[in-house]
């Protein structure tokens, strides 16, 4: 089904590009090259489409099977969704310039095109010149958290680096003078401040509270670890539906993962690439028409001269 229909326009494709003007026109070869690339993309698109369809059909079948064998009244659906779910598979978009993308055309054509694009320089072309590549990958929740923590640390450190050092020294000195009773604790604070742990950055205003922090540090770390473990366990969506999930449901999950990780990002990338080639084809066609019009005018002028 899916493979037969899209191929219908191909017949038009072979007929249309070379028909309007004579052969040997540089624009024609360029358009032909673009169209062959476009057809390759279309082929990939249709095969991806059919594999997505079959994957999803399998997924729906497995879901139905899981629901059929489930206890009465249980349906694996939205009632079980976790309200605090966190995405473990995320999109990665790479946006690059299209330069390295010219598979189907000669180098000369590419250069010409780039020049002309530069010359034209319309506002709407900014999007068209970019090449977007989509990917979907697993992101561990703890990874995300660690990254966030690191970022926060870096930001805090970046902003306060110098201030902090001075402030800490000062505060330690001040505290050392005024609060002799807490001297030992402050020394602890001094040692933790030299080793970069996440909770140590303290603003100068809070310096009076520093003595209480180092004691909590180890406890906080432990809490964080247990939290992360809990989140990791929670983060498998299968767990929403209970500890022992039926095999069909697990199969449905693997199929969904395959679709999300492999097929969908590729489909989207091919789609973007096709849109890009469409723009290029239209542009080349316009140029060809312009040239043809100019030639026709010149011819008309020449014939008019000859007549005179």
């Amino acid at each position, binding site marked *: 089904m899916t493979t037969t*229909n899209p191929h219908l*326009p191909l017949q038009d494709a072979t007929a249309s590009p070379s028909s309007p003007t004579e052969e040997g026109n540089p624009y024609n070869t360029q358009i032909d090259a673009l169209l062959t690339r476009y057809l390759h993309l*279309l082929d990939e698109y249709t095969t991806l489409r059919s594999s997505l369809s079959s994957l999803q059909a399998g997924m*729906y079948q497995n879901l139905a099977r899981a629901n059929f064998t489930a206890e009465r009244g249980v349906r*694996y659906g*939205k009632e079980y969704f976790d309200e605090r779910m966190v995405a473990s598979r995320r999109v990665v978009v790479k946006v690059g310039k299209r330069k390295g993308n010219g598979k189907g055309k000669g180098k000369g054509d590419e250069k010409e095109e780039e020049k002309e694009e530069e010359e034209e320089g319309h506002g709407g072309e900014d999007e068209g010149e970019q090449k977007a590549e989509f990917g*979907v990958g697993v992101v561990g929740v703890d990874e995300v958290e660690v990254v966030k923590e690191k970022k926060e640390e870096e930001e805090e450190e970046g902003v306060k680096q110098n201030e902090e050092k001075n402030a800490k020294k000062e505060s330690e000195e001040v505290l050392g003078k005024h609060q002799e009773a807490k001297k030992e604790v402050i020394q602890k604070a001094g040692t933790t401040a030299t080793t970069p742990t996440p909770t140590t950055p303290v603003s100068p205003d809070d310096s009076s509270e520093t003595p209480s922090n180092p004691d909590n540090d180890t406890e906080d770390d432990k809490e964080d670890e247990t939290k992360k473990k809990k989140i990791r366990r929670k983060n498998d969506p299968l767990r929403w539906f209970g500890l022992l999930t039926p095999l069909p449901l697990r199969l449905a999950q693997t199929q969904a993962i395959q679709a*999300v990780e492999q097929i969908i990002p590729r489909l989207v990338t091919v*789609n973007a690439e096709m849109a890009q080639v469409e723009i290029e084809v239209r542009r080349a066609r316009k140029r060809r028409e312009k040239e043809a019009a100019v030639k026709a005018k010149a011819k008309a002028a020449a014939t008019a001269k000859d007549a005179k």
Partner: protein
Amino acid sequence: MATSQADARDRQFLAVIGDEDSVTGLLLAGIGHVTAPPDSQKNFLVVDNKTDNAAIEAAFDRFTTERKDIGIVLINQHIADRIRHRVDTHTAAFPTVLEIPSKDHPYDPEKDSVLRRVRRLFGE
């Protein structure tokens, strides 16, 4: 250029608008995300018989224009048909919209926006 690149990098979620089975399946793959409590924004919408077109349209607008953290919007083809005018007028590169088949409505190439674009290119 630079702004759109940064814009693309922030787009890290997939969003789904679909019937219950489609959404359940895709969420099983781990794409579901609910933002921190004050707004608690979901990146999915379960559409059933009772869901009206306005709600679907609102979700589509939210995923495509309001939220800047969504890179791909997946929508069941038969639901996309219900808000076809909105789906077809979405031409921005990010987020990209992909129509996917559903349980009761298999993929129909006639309605596929990409293949309609192909026809337009060759039919001119």
